[in-house]
């Protein structure tokens, strides 16, 4: 449990702001930054950090989805179909997490962080080029959107739904165990395996991660791992940081952002592995 009186409100809001800002700039929900910042910098127990992060993920997902829905980038039907599998994984993950040791969770978080850094280090062109065009299509999930940067309507068919459903269960379990949105699993799977264009995959994943977070957040909330005094400043900070990041994102160089992201994630992974090994920071 957290004693909110011992935790500075400004430090919590700053943590949320930093996570929201970096997350928004790099196209993530921010959960992957909230958990290590709360755990390593502010000494919040990892289960409480995960519970708080899940509330933050619900906030960023809802905020970002408003823009994506306005642009009609989100494939709502695909989101619902995949989310039906993800929510099941999320509930299982959340139930498991409270029985797992802090050492195991810290090590698992480190592994997931390394995986995310590896994915981001790869050039985006490689992802587009290797997108699979084979496999059975699912006609009912076909969609289209207007791409402003290309000034054309992009239509696409969804392929390999069973593989996508399987990956969604795993993404949900990881989300429930670690308090992250799981977008770093869903986006590559939708793009590389299911042939969903990158922008549509990000928008669809964004709507999904909020629902996934809620599925496990209920369990953390009623077990006392979500303190309103801690969640309030973190969530307000995340929303403000995400808004600030979205205003600056289009000005920043994608390549530099990507490199900064990999370096930050590498540092987080090392710290989480040290925590798992009992060395601490």
């Amino acid at each position, binding site marked *: 449990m957290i004693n909110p009186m011992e935790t500075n409100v400004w430090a919590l809001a700053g943590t949320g702001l930093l996570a929201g800002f970096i997350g928004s700039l790099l196209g993530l929900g921010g959960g992957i930054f909230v958990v290590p910042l709360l755990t390593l910098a502010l000494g919040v127990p990892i289960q409480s950090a995960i519970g708080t992060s899940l*509330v933050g993920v*619900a*906030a960023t997902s*809802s905020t970002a989805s408003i823009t994506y*829905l306005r642009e009609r980038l989100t494939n*709502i039907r695909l989101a*619902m179909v995949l989310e039906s599998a993800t929510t099941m994984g*999320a509930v299982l993950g959340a139930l498991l997490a409270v029985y797992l040791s802090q050492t195991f969770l810290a090590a698992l978080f480190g592994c997931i962080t390394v995986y995310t850094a590896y994915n981001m280090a790869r050039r985006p062109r490689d992802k587009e080029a290797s997108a699979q065009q084979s496999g059975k299509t699912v006609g009912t999930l076909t969609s289209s959107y207007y791409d402003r940067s290309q000034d054309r309507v992009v239509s696409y068919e969804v392929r390999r739904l069973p593989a996508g459903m399987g990956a969604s269960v795993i993404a949900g379990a990881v989300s429930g165990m670690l308090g992250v949105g799981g977008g770093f699993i869903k986006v590559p799977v939708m793009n590389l395996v299911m042939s969903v264009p990158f922008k549509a995959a990000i928008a669809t994943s964004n709507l999904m991660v909020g629902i996934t977070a809620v599925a496990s957040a209920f369990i953390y909330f009623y077990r006392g791992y979500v303190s*309103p005094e801690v969640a309030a400043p973190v*969530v307000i900070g995340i929303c403000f940081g995400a808004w600030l990041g979205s205003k600056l994102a289009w000005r920043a160089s994608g390549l530099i952002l990507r490199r900064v992201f990999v370096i930050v994630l590498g540092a987080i992974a090392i710290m989480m592995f040290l925590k798992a090994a009992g060395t601490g920071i």
Partner: protein
Amino acid sequence: MENQLDTIAMTRRNMRYAALYRSVKLVLEIGVAAALVLLAAGLVVNAFAGGAAPTAVMTLGVLVLLATPVLAVLVVAGFSIRLHDWVGLTASSVIIGVLIVSLVLALGIG
């Protein structure tokens, strides 16, 4: 004639889908705004007065935030019935079912 009827049917369906996007967006906008107001109000009162009331307001803010995506799924389920979209209805019903199970589990073991 048949083509024209198809076009009209497609247009009506597209308009209903546009209404779905607008409705989900509206639910998210109202939910996030309400939650942020409650959380901020609770924090401000807590800083000056303290006590149980601001904590209750912040708790309500967290619950509104958590309820927002759930309401969005309910809106999708409602529109799926109007659009005779059985895939969408089945998927959104499964999500609502799992969320209810999650809530029941949380209450049972919390």
